[in-house]
């Protein structure tokens, strides 16, 4: 370290201590040593304090995100099960709005120009934007989203989960995964299962800032409804639909059979009634029967 270096000259104006530091070239070396040591100690203390606060904020954020997604899924499930068609339609519209506005909004804090680099050149994507030293980039995310329809979601995940899977209600086909020297965190690339008719692509990567989150970046907008709106288990839903269909069909079949039987009975009764009223038919029938009686003793 250069002993003449004044650490307060670096960019840290927000946290600059009020203490006056000797920053002129005429300052005495004997004065600088204790100031330097004291400054270093203060820095360490400040770093510890900020790091503790950072950890606490990350924990709070994880909790809030978990609660948010739990509430979101609960509401989604509740409406998909018990909601009327109007409720479902309204929720579907609100969900789209939530997806577009609120999730995108919540990513601004962590965005840091990531989506901007994705929209232009993915290979230059940097996992640790704060290492660039330019933190102002994060606020350009909204603009880039508006232009290229790129949205980023931060999804809480288990630290041990390496599958890079984000359950978002749509079905995806994975078409690649890569790691580069400048971006050592593996990222997976997905296309919507309706591709090529649906152009949406998704990239999933663990957050560089907070490994408790997966960063899912979506490019484009789906041109079809989600395959599983509740985000739950598809087979069980399909199964429940089948059961409902079976109940309806099994309830309809006996009614239809009964109707057909009734119609046939009425037709037979009408026919019998009309025949018995016809004298020719009665005579022919009597002759036939009597003839049969007369024939029997002969045989």
């Amino acid at each position: 370290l250069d002993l003449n270096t004044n650490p307060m000259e670096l960019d840290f104006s927000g946290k600059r201590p009020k203490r006056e530091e000797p920053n002129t070239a005429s300052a005495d070396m004997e004065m600088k040593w204790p100031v330097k040591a004291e400054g270093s100690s203060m820095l360490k203390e400040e770093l510890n304090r900020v790091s503790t606060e950072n950890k606490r904020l990350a924990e709070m954020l994880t909790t809030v995100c978990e609660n948010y997604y739990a509430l979101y899924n609960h509401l989604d499930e509740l409406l998909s099960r018990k909601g009327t068609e109007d409720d479902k339609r309204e929720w579907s519209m609100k969900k789209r709005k939530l997806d577009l506005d609120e999730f995108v909004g919540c990513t601004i804090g962590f965005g840091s120009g990531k989506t901007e680099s994705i929209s232009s050149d993915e290979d230059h994507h940097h996992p640790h934007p704060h290492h660039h030293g330019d933190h102002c980039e994060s606020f350009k995310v909204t603009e880039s989203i508006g232009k290229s329809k790129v949205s980023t979601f931060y999804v809480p995940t288990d630290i041990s989960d390496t599958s890079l899977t984000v359950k978002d209600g749509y079905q995806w086909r994975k078409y690649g995964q890569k790691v580069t020297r400048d971006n050592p965190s593996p990222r997976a690339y997905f296309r919507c299962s309706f591709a090529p008719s649906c152009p949406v692509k998704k990239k999933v990567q663990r957050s560089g800032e907070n490994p408790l989150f997966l960063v899912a970046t979506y490019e484009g907008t789906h041109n079809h409804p989600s395959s599983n709106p509740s985000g739950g288990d598809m087979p069980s839903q399909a199964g429940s639909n089948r059961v409902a269909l079976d109940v309806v069909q099994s309830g309809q079949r006996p009614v239809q059979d009964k109707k057909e039987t009734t119609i046939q009975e009425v037709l037979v009764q009408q026919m019998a009634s009309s025949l018995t009223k016809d004298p020719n038919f009665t005579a022919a029938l009597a002759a036939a029967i009597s003839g049969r009686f007369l024939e029997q003793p002969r045989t």
Partner: protein
Amino acid sequence: PATCPLMEELNRVSAENKKLAEMLTLMCENYNALKNQLM
């Protein structure tokens, strides 16, 4: 100017703190908005 690792680290963690705080605020707002919809 020569770099000071401690100061750089402090700058980095502070910037991250700021982002976390902003994101937390937004998520809280989103959560409350969703809760109001449920009510």
